[in-house]
């Protein structure tokens, strides 16, 4: 990361000599954008449709009107309900269906906006990935640095059904930080979050002493963070005393299953958690007593973690869409023309967007024992 920052700094210096140029005339016309990715996570699947606005007309948004959508499952159209325009976050039109999609279902899309070609796409709902046996062990370095820790997860699984899909596993960590203040005769508590950004360092053999056979096939280099808007302490609903308390913060790291076909075998994933920001949450780290977990001023902190493994079985479109989205996050150099650029993934004909499906199975929550 530091290397990238150094290079970005160099680019920032160069950017002192910037000047504007005309981009109009080099942009494509408005297209039909569709996003529909169904899974077994929710009973409702949303379908977004919108006429895109060419950047050259950025100050004059294209209004989506008169659109129609149809999704067939195994040749039979399913019902959609049109929701109110959401505006704000998404200025297009939103449709919802509660149809239950089953593995093996063949889906077909037709989406039309007047004045444009009808956008079409197809997808097949993948089979679920069988939940494997798994075990874990901790990185011993965690004992020395609370800001860096690592956990190795080993998965053992039988053949996944089918071989046309893409398989991935996500490690989810929920964390909570409780700060209790001693008032002489009782504790009062307030709650915060430890922002630990997990990163899959590698998959393969994750012995951190001799990880010789390293295979870096991370699906996501950056974690997906479901974080509150601020990192402040939250006293809402606080209760004194240690234990599990919401709100938690979830952080997730993805890793591809090797060879993407999930043939029988074992598979190790090494996840590190960088918790730099936990220090920002401490009011005075210099008074922290690691022996008693209290500060000299009568505070004590309780940190709780729990984990879950989620196994994903994607069809090709939803996998590529996910991967392309994450690649875009690191495309600063590509956006400047200094590295190969990746396009927004699409499997929509005569349009743009994604039409796909994935299935999820997951473990129960568990705690890592020391």
């Amino acid at each position: 990361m530091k290397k990238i920052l150094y290079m970005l700094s160099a680019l920032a210096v160069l950017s002192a000599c910037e000047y504007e140029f005309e981009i109009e005339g080099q942009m494509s016309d408005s297209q039909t954008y569709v996003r529909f990715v169904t899974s077994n996570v929710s009973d409702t699947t949303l379908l977004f449709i919108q006429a895109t606005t060419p950047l050259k007309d950025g100050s004059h948004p294209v209004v989506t009107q008169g659109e129609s959508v149809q999704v067939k499952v195994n040749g039979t159209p399913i019902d959609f309900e049109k929701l109110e325009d959401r505006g704000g976050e998404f200025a297009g039109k939103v449709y919802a269906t509660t149809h239950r999609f089953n593995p093996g279902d063949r889906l077909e899309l037709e989406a039309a906006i007047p004045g444009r070609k009808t956008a079409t796409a197809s997808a097949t709902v993948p089979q679920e990935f069988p939940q494997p046996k798994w075990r874990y062990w901790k990185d011993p370095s965690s004992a020395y640095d609370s800001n860096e820790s690592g956990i190795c997860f080993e998965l053992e699984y039988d053949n996944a059904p089918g071989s046309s899909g893409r398989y991935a596993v996500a490690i989810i960590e929920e964390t909570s930080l409780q700060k209790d203040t001693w008032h002489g005769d009782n504790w009062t508590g307030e709650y915060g979050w430890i922002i630990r950004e997990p990163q899959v360092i590698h998959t393969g053999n994750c012995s951190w002493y001799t990880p010789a056979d390293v295979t870096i096939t991370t699906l996501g280099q950056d974690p997906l963070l479901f974080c509150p808007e601020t990192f402040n302490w939250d006293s809402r609903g606080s209760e004194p005393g240690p234990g599990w308390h919401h709100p938690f913060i979830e952080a997730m790291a993805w890793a591809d299953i090797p060879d993407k076909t999930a043939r029988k075998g074992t598979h190790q994933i090494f996840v590190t958690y960088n918790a730099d920001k936990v220090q920002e949450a401490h009011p005075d780290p210099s008074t922290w007593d690691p022996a008693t977990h209290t500060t000299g001023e009568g505070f004590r902190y309780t940190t709780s973690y729990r984990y879950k493994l989620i196994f994903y079985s994607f069809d090709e479109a939803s996998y590529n869409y996910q991967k392309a989205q994450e690649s875009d996050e690191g495309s600063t150099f590509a956006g400047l023309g200094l590295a190969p650029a990746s396009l927004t993934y699409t499997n929509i004909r005569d349009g743009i967007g994604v039409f796909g499906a994935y299935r999820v199975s997951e473990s129960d929550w568990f705690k890592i024992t020391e």
Partner: protein
Amino acid sequence: MNTKNRFFRSAGTLILALILLGPAALAQKKTTQQQLTRKECVEAVSKTFNVKFVYDASISLDDVYTGMSLGMVTDKRPGAEKISLQECLDRLFEDSGIVWNRKGKHIVLKKGTSHPVHREEPAPELSIIYGGGDYDHDADTLEASRVSTDRMKMAVRTQTGLTRLDASKINSGFAIFNSPDLIKTIQRLPGVSSGTELLSGLYVHGGTGSDNLYLLDGVPLYSTSHLIGLFSSFNSDVVDDVDFYKSGFPARYGGRLSSVVDVNTREGNMYEWHGNFSIGLIDGRFQIDGPIVKGKTSLNFGLRRTWLDAVTIPGLMIANIYAGRSAGEKYAGHYAFWDMNLGLTHIISDTDKLQFTFFNGMDNLRGSYESYLSTDYDKDTHEHVFDFSKRQDNTDIRLGWGSTTAGLTWNHFFSDELTMRTRLSYARSDNKTKFDYSEWDYDRTKPAKLESSYFSKEDNRSKVHDIILRSDLDWIPSDIHHVRFGASFQHHIYNPDRKAHYWLENHDEKTVLIDTKSSQAYHGEEAALYAEDEISIGNRLTLAPGLRYSIFSTGKKTYHSPEPRLAMRYDIGRDVALKFSYTDMRQYVHLIQTLYLDLPTSSWLPCTETMKPMHSSQIAGGVYARLPHDLHLEIEGFWKSLDHIYEYNGPFSLYPPIEKWESSFSEGKGRAYGAEVAFGWTGENTDIDLAYTLSWSQRFFPEFYHTWYFDRNDYRNMLNITATHRFTNRFEIYGGFTFRTGGRLTLADQVIDPTKDEQVAYIYNTLFTTPYNVRMPSYHRLDLGMNFKKLTRRGNERTWNFSIYNAYCHLNPIFADISRDEDGNYKGKAFGAIPVIPTLSYQLKF
């Protein structure tokens, strides 16, 4: 024995047979001296004795020289007669109507009165004869002296797309920071673009930039630039000539798709010591050549080095003293490059000559930063007090890259009709980067005690080793045939290596966090056989068919392929020729990089089972004419297809993933087509050249986009105009104007939520629908230069050069992106960084 081993053993045997037996069967005719024009003899004298000829425009040297033998000057057999310069000149101009007069290293020619001077058809192969020097007393002659060039050659060579540059052409060009640059001279030729501002990239006919074959004395060179591409690795002081091919590749060349840059260094003078010394703003050069054993063994040595580090190191030390102490920080850094060329030539016998060449070029860049522990804070002055014995963190970055080549060549003359050259050579490329970071945590009670330390070290290296055995034979069995054939065998080792070591130290206890070592070693064997013949059919038609058969084996996979070549020329009258060529090329090595910048983070890796050899086919043709009034015109068209080319498709990373690199690259196709015009005029004191290219370059990568799209280096129009004018023998000027349509980059072109007016709306709600959809602003700049020359009393030539790069300071774009203004409109923003760069240098030739 498996098939692969059998093949390579057979290839080795064949090379040996070519060396030992083939020539004997072909060497039938007795040695006879070839007939040369007097101009060709002058050129040979100039090269042999390192002198320059100055002569009046009315003097023609195009008659065939039929006088006494000039010995080793024109007879390349190692045992030929050795004669002095004076004897040579006496023989050459005897009864010619021309008188010569020597002034230092200049030979001034004048018309005599007793003999007529015949003006016949110009010889096809003119050489550059450079007039100059301090001859006030000969002013009447020098006013009319002329500079001849080789541009007329295009009309008489069979190949399309060939440009031959000799040393004086390269050295007469613009110099930035002291050094004339061979690659930048080539960048001005039609059909060639340079890519990023200032860098030494060559993008030829839609090529990728990594598909150019650079040969230095016949040995492939992987790393061809210094200072992140600002300088090329070719020291113009030692370069003799360069053959640059962009189409019509003869069968003797192979291994790259788009161009061949065949650089030959000069042999040392066998009789006199000469040299030159040059000093500029950031670098200096030194070259010397002469006899070790007169007439037998010679040496040519060139050295070039920058002294930027001599400026930056003390500069940063001073900055640390005055600014760093108050901030508790220390910076250090330096940059240096150097290259060294060594050539040894030894004449063994009348028929045998040995040559040893060596090249080493390296770049080293280092930067470091340290911060120190603040132990106190003065509230009144708001200043920290630092303990400079306690570091808080340290960052150290080191980059190094370079190449080494060495070659031993044996030249054997069987006869005037048959010669052989066999070379054993070694080439190495070495790219390395190191990133070290350390952090120390202290117990801040006074005095502060070290609690724990954190260290990370990353070491990346990518090396290539080539061992090459090659034999080439040149056979002229009759007046209508010129046959070349040969074989080569190369053993390649590609060795990318990456180490990461992260650890904690806590109260003398070390805990390793990460210790990864990723090392790959690919071995590849490459062999090739070729044969080509230049056949004259009647007076007007010349055909040059050729065939190269190449084979490459790595791991379990072996690729092999015929590569047919054809060139033809049809002369329409004396001054106009039509040409056509077809070439088929294979490239068995890929440059693996995640950035388009010329950084040592990239690796050369071979074809594998999944990564196929790149392939190109190209046809080119055109008309080449010498026009009245010393004008010349060349119009050439080309069409090229590229297959199995690869582009990185993974998430951004400074380094390509060497463990699974094959799955991180997508395969695609390319095609390029266009037309080029070269037009020029050569006056007595003025040269003007104009090169215009209209071209299209496209790519098709099914994983990226469903149809063909324009490539990043799709420069629609390119125009280069260069002019030199010599006012007097002491003063000449040079000007070069470059224009090209801007390159392309991929920017978002659709937005799905344009209602937000924050910049974030661009980042998160935009869609990238078309690759390389935006053109950057056009590139243009003007370079100017002037030379002030004078001969010293000792006959040495000294030159002051003053050059201005980008004279009107146009900040050409290096990169660009899109941002949104307050009104919701999206604007392209280009970023340029290279302003006007003045350069002053001094050169002394002795």
